[in-house]
């Protein structure tokens, strides 16, 4: 029997005007049909930091994450405001394709295209009007280096992406995202299908990438959250219960539900 926690008692940090933010949501609600899945989500993400979203299965972390780049369009109804560079991108008139180029996403299961490694990276670039060979080659190298995959694949760029290992495929997916030169990178449990060694590689990659990108990562793995993130938000049954710097969250959680979750005595 799951213990009942009050949704009134929350501890969500806010940032003052001096902190530059990558993006922010304001009173965001998500509905799957008549099912209210996300309640009053108010979170702000500081620039060039890794923010981890943690919580049990079904707590709404992935739902929240997928709303940020409008991947829930056609699947769920999202209301409220999503602020990105001073624009509310949760408006019908917003060009979602443009938005997704700025807010990239990496999924739980590695999903490289059934094409060569090279094509995986350049396909979307070409579709967006980058045709110059030199520029494409440059982007391939930069993005693969950024995802720490370059040394492993540089001699085999024409090999099928499907012939790579799971960890390499996931890093290719990260490379594919950062090749678009995004601003924010959303990752939905990127390591849950990977072995521990591949996980370490992806984590190292992310720590390196936060210098250039703002990263929001959903993870089931609390060790992972504490290893790589600067901020951490705890989700419970569609509510954001606590949001604090990761160190504080893990050493001194403010409210009972977070304390129980982090202590492992949840429910």
């Amino acid at each position, binding site marked *: 029997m799951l213990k009942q926690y009050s949704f009134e008692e929350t501890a969500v940090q806010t940032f003052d005007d001096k902190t530059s933010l990558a993006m922010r949501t304001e009173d965001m609600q998500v509905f799957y049909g008549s099912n209210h899945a996300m309640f009053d989500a108010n979170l702000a993400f500081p620039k060039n930091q890794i923010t981890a979203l943690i919580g049990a299965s079904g707590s709404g972390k992935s739902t929240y994450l997928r709303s940020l*780049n409008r*991947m829930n369009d056609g699947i769920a109804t999202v209301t409220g405001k999503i602020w990105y560079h001073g624009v509310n991108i949760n408006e019908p008139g917003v060009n979602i*394709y*443009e*938005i*997704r*180029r700025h807010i*990239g*996403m990496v*999924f739980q*299961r590695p*999903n*490289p*295209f*059934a*094409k*060569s490694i090279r*094509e995986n990276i350049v*396909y*979307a670039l070409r*579709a*967006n009007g980058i045709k110059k060979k030199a520029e494409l080659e440059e982007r391939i190298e930069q993005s693969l280096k950024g995802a720490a995959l370059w040394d492993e694949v540089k001699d085999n760029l*024409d*090999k*099928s*992406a*499907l*012939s790579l290992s799971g960890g390499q495929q996931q890093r290719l*997916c990260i490379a*594919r*995202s950062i090749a*678009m030169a995004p601003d924010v990178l959303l990752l939905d449990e990127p390591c849950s299908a990977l072995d521990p060694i591949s996980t370490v590689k992806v984590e190292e990659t992310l720590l390196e990438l936060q210098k250039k990108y703002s990263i929001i990562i959903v993870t089931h793995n609390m060790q992972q959250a504490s290893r790589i993130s600067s901020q951490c938000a705890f989700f419970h049954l569609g509510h954001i219960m606590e949001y604090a710097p990761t160190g504080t969250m893990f050493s001194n959680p403010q409210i009972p539900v977070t304390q129980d979750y982090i202590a492992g005595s949840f429910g």
Partner: protein
Amino acid sequence: MNAKRTDFVATVVIDLIVASVVGILFFLLAYILTAGLPHVSWSFLTGATDAFSGAGGIGVQLFNSFYLLVLTMLISVPISLGAGIYLAEYAKDNWRTSLIRSAIEVLSSLPSVVVGLFGFLLFVVKFKIGFSVISGSIALTFFNLPLLTRNIEESLSAVSRSQREAGLSLGLSKWKTELGIILPVALPGIVTGIVLSAGRVFGEAAALIYTAGQSAPVTNFADWNPMDPASPLNPFRPAETLAVHIWKVNTEGLASNAAALSAAASAVLIIAVLLFNLGARLLGNYLYRRVTASK
């Protein structure tokens, strides 16, 4: 009986069933080929038919079959590609989509002779096109469409949803994702389906008797202007196909060697259909390796 014994008996029974299916096929093939192949010669494959008795070669019919096939595919592949993409990607899960699906199922279960009769009444008589290649290929399109649409829809739906998400998350439009990412992955399956349906179209007779006609007027293979009445490419000339020829020689053929003629023509038809099947496999595998860049 213990589990091990049950398992053994079940395995033997299943093996026997499979063996009988394969056995029937090989028996049929062997029978048709041994009966027909001895009568197949180069002059039979290329020669002209005597319009009255049905004796002689099958050159024109062979050409007609391929020409009709090409025309049918030219009409039906684009339409079913559009319909398949619509059903797999754009159709919402509502009553309208299920109505479309059942319409496609009904169309695919129409007897080919009915489709032929319909084509006869509408194109041949009403539109006054007459017995012609074009009437035949439109009739064949009718029952080729549902099979192809189904095949294309299934091939597209078999592609993992995560591939679509990957495309969308990179800022690609739905259409661009569909065309550049999903379609190439589904292509081997689609091509296999097209070639297999080509085999069915190639062997179809009932729908063509009333639409493409039962006569193969002498055509001038030196004249490739589609507008000339004697040109083999003229889509408005009557065109008896190989399958129709077999039916005709058997039912109303006056040639003394009618049995040998139809056996030989059947052997040729079977070989052509087998080649389509083999081609479908090879082409499908080849395309899969090409698009996925796996060697």
